[in-house]
């Protein structure tokens, strides 16, 4: 579904991604771990088209199409979705207006009918209930006055509503208590199917108990220095990153 080849990217003139290679197939869940500042969010932003990040080399194919040529809205309509590490507040625009606008843009792109207000309302209520969210938040302004945990849940609500093919979760677990974590993971697991794929950025093994990855990658200084299966996450939890970093440095000598 997604093929990343030798991807390099700069932020404000500084190289942050230094040649990422990764292939993710439909039905798979990949986890990306790595120390602070290693480039995890940068990768997520580059894949979803944030124009502050400049791609200097490499290629990304999304279902065979050249992803890097598309603007952010086109990527979304093609089926990319990023649950933000720091979701944005939009005063004056309700969750309902926001999501209905987004959903209809995506449907228009796919040549589908727009949803009627009634259909939309029952759909969003259903999804909100699934995530244990108060229905009142449907009419509240996007993320305004939401707690950290509520914002993360709201990201997952957006995912459920927009039905993307490829989902990036950027530290969606941070700031969640254990119950909220289970609810969010449950939302992801319900949504997961053979046609979707996930790339989950996290610092904690904890999330991966609930969202079980097929592959785990370690990002360090803009490169994937190790890939493995879910056991790698357990090993990292136990031993930290030092041993891997040392191994990597030895190889480079």
């Amino acid at each position, binding site marked *: 579904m997604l093929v990343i080849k030798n991807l390099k990217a700069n932020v404000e003139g500084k190289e942050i991604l230094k040649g990422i290679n990764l292939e993710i197939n439909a039905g798979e869940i990949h986890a990306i771990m790595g120390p602070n500042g290693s480039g995890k969010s940068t990768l997520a*932003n580059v894949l*979803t*088209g*944030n*124009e*502050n990040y400049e791609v200097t080399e490499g290629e990304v194919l999304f279902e065979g199409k050249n992803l890097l040529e598309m*603007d*952010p*809205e086109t*990527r*979304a*309509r093609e089926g*990319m*979705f*990023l649950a*933000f590490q720091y*979701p*944005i*507040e*939009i*005063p*004056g*625009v309700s969750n309902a*207006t*926001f*999501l209905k*606008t*987004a*959903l209809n*843009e*995506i449907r228009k*792109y796919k040549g589908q009918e727009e949803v009627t207000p009634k259909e939309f309302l029952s759909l969003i209520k259903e999804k909100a209930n699934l995530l244990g969210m108060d229905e009142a938040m449907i009419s509240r*302004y996007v993320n305004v006055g939401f707690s950290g945990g509520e914002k993360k849940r709201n990201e997952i609500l*957006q995912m459920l509503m*927009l039905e993307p093919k490829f989902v990036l979760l950027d530290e969606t677990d941070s700031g969640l208590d254990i119950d909220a974590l289970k609810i969010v993971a449950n939302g992801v697991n319900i949504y997961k199917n053979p046609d979707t794929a996930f790339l989950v950025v996290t610092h904690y093994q904890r999330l991966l108990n609930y969202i079980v990855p097929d592959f785990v990658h370690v990002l360090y200084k803009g490169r994937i220095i190790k890939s493995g299966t879910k056991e790698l996450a357990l090993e990292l939890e136990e031993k930290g990153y030092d041993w891997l970093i040392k191994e990597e440095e030895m190889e480079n000598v």
Partner: protein
Amino acid sequence: MNSKSFYIEKFVDFEKQLNGDSKTFFHNLRKESIKKLNEVDFPTTKNEEWKFTDVTPIIERNFIPSNLSTKIEISKNEIDNYIFSGFDFHLLVFVNGNFVEGLSKINELPKNVFVGNLKTFQKEKENLFKDNINKFLVNETAFNLLNTSFAVDGFAIYVPKNVVIEKPIQVLFINGSEKENILVSPRNLLIAEENSQVSVISNYRGIKEEKYFSNIVSEIFIDKNAVVDYYKVQNENDNSFHIEKIQAYQKEKSVFNQFNITFGGEIVRNDINTKLDGENIEAHLYGLYMINGNQHVDNHTFVDHAKPNCMSNELYKGILDEKSHGVFNGKIIVRQDAQKTNAYQQNKTILLSKGATIDTKPQLEIFADDVKCSHGATVGHLDEVSEFYIRSRGVPQELAKSMLIRAFANDVIETIKIAELKEQINHLIFQHLHKIEI
């Protein structure tokens, strides 16, 4: 001929067609004003209060006082395009400063209330008129004198003690003429007695393409415990000139909520003054203006804290596109007597293009020692991370920008208490900025 001599000369013709009205108290005021106008000059940018607003384009033209110009007919259908609707209100309509009774609609009102035009008010409530007109104006400029000289009519609202007027009063001012460049001089008076309440919406609209000059003075007297909501929506032609002084005078425990929504013109200048002359008064000044092209909007506010234990709160926001120019000057005086004053002021601006500019200046003069005063000004652009967030959900860039404009304006829009008015202003914002509506 310079415009001052032009107006002084025109005053002679103007007097002639006043007939019986020329013997009145009102007319004596006019005569005094035209005399004073002879002695003062129109402000220039050398004047500190007018530093950023060059009025040359206004005074290099001779605008024919509307009462000497050809009358304009407006139909009932036309009115419907301009009024804010969807809620119950009393309606007063003025075309080029003259009251049009046939288009106005006053529903049932409590006894002794007056909702109508100033011309009638000066006859029916002569003493109230004399006691209040031209009483509280501060920093009278040549423009204010010009208004008093040629003012014939405007709204007059009198709410007696203990009366609450439930429905808002909408005053529609339609200005402009296709035949001449005219000067329109509405003169408005609002008197809210002890314990009374009233909500007024002044709705200024331009109709004809010829340049015109709306030069307005509005006086608002708010007695003990009274609450006045005063909305001003200026939505005139992009090439028109508009100058207004709103002067409020508040007594103890009164509340004044002023909403200043401006869509611009070639030059727009608002002076919004309130004097807090009693204890436990509240004054809230909210402003929102959105301009583009070569428009120029200058908002000057002046909050005069004269007595202790009062609060004033000011929030002004500007959205500036293309080559437009905004000015905000927020003056607060806390006089020696005014201990325990709380005065807040915020001015925020977003620039939607490189060519747009803003000059913003707080002006705090504090003579009491036990006061809380804060002010802040920010100038920025639409946030790129927020824009990316919205687009990453499939929303096109233009619409994402509209959402961020709405987000920026939100805290001022939210203060509008009439839901339908709020919605219609929201609509006008996007229409005026040529942006997709959300």
